[in-house]
């Protein structure tokens, strides 16, 4: 029930009461105005600019070989990142909730670090270990596609973990106990009882990770080397286009990028609603 409706229906306010947050209308207007100017207007500008030269120009910009290569790398590495995140994220969430060991609390708070750490630092952090003068035998991933995937894995680490963890915490152990007492083996229990319950959270976390990976920029500029047709992702390509003054082509690729990540989130939203309605 809206507060505005209550005040007018139950307790007709004295004139002074309309002040406050400025009455529901004013607050709402300010908020809608702020979001429109801050978010919707910029998006409109990108979309309009991408179509300024007509559909043909848009198509040319998007299908330029270098743009296609960048988009391909972006989508494929983001998909790889999602798969790795789904597996390891679920596993780590499981260990953080069900296992007990010393230092768990520390590890648990550390999981948020990729969100708190500036992306440019994230890139540098990975270079320290895996770069040219890296410490491990793994060194030399800088300026390769492996480096791109690694950077994306770093910045998207928390999504699946943090979305699975609360569900796992709330999960009723009785179901698992029942399955166990009926003779199900641990793996079967996980597959048939636990996993179906976690699935929506895993999918939601995976989708967020995908959306983030598709647009990632900061962590990639140092580690990927930004080699066209090789390690240049779309965001870096767009940056290059802006720098060289091709704002229309930059806008066109931006629209594609936007469509991919927003489309993904929208799909997941639909999927979520569908599972809610049809039950599992």
């Amino acid at each position, binding site marked *: 029930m809206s507060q505005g409706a209550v005040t007018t229906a139950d307790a007709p306010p004295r004139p002074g009461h309309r002040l406050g*947050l400025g009455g529901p209308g004013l607050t709402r207007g300010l908020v809608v105005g702020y979001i429109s100017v801050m*978010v919707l207007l910029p998006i409109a500008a990108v979309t309009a600019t991408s179509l300024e030269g007509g559909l043909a120009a848009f198509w040319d910009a998007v299908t330029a070989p270098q743009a296609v290569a960048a988009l391909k790398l972006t989508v494929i590495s983001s998909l790889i990142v999602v798969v790795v995140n789904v597996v390891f994220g679920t596993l780590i969430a499981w260990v953080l909730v069900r296992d007990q060991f010393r230092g768990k609390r520390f590890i648990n708070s550390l999981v948020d670090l990729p969100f708190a750490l500036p992306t440019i630092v994230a890139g540098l952090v990975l270079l320290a270990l895996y770069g040219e003068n890296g410490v491990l035998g793994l060194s030399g991933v800088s300026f390769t596609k492996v480096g791109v995937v690694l950077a994306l894995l770093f910045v998207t680490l928390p999504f699946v973990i943090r979305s699975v963890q609360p569900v796992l915490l709330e999960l009723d152990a009785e179901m698992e106990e029942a399955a166990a007492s009926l003779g199900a083996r*641990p793996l079967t229990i996980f597959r048939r009882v636990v996993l179906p319950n976690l699935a929506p959270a895993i999918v939601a976390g995976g989708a967020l990770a995908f959306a983030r990976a598709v647009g990632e920029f900061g962590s990639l500029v140092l580690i990927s080397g930004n080699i066209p047709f090789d390690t240049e992702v779309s965001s870096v390509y767009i940056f290059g286009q802006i720098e060289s003054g091709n704002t229309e082509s930059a806008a066109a690729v931006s629209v594609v990028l936007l469509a991919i990540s927003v489309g993904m989130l929208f799909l997941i939203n639909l999927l979520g609603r569908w599972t809610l309605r049809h039950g599992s």
Partner: protein
Amino acid sequence: MAVSSTDAGTKNIVQGGRLARYGLRTVALTYLSLLLLIPVALVFYKAFEEGFSVAWEAVSTPEAQHAIYLTVLMVVIAVPINTVFGIACAIVLVRHNFRGKALLNAAIDMPFAISPVVIGLSLVLLYSTRDGWFGQDLAAAGIEVIFTPVGMVLATMFVSLPFVVREVVPVLQEIGDDQEQAASTLGAGRWQTFWRITLPSIRWGVTYGVILATARALGEFGAVSVVSGRISGSTETLPLYLRKLFDTFDVAGAYAAAVVLALLALVVLFAMNFIQRRDRAILAGPSVATEPGALVPHLDVPDGKENR
């Protein structure tokens, strides 16, 4: 409600899976160490490898100090504005019903889904003095946005916009509006109700959102990079300065700047942990075993939790 090993039913899971449990733990910890722990620790090591004074010099040049000043300035302007509007947004989303609410809700999440570079581009398209939609008019009025701190603040505001809203909305939903109604029935005005009832009950949500927004504002690279033009000593924030150091082969300096930013990130992490623990202690009592962070943006993706 963690599975305890004393539960009769789960006994055989635990026994049968001791090896599996250690295996899983090893895999999880190895993954986290290789991706997170060791690399971050190494940055600290590398920064001080050539001595503390070298690192200190790198971050105490006038250029570096200006970069730090500008980074702080971004936060000090963008975060308070987003906090005020974030609280208002959350109240409108939770307590009001109107047409287009779903669109508003979706629009607030957009900064999470848009690449920072695209955000930068969009601001250039709007405010560039050369061919931006409003650039020339604003320039005529004496306001230049692109390649100045004004544009950088706008970019920072864009990227850090959703955090306060997304942290406050669930709190508002949870507390309901009983107390606000009671206050209003007892004759409290809107402001009074807001200051005395609503704000105190959402304050930890607000604080949490502010911390997240601050972290994001401090570290923003892509959007600010596009908008600023990266003029040294003028429009260079600390992350941009770091990149320049790295590109000019001042690797030690880059690591030193990274340490400054990483330390800020650690402060953020501590603050988050503190609030989570406090929050949980208030809401659920001290018996909760694990506290999963709530840092995953609360995008409006139904995750089926309502099902249970």
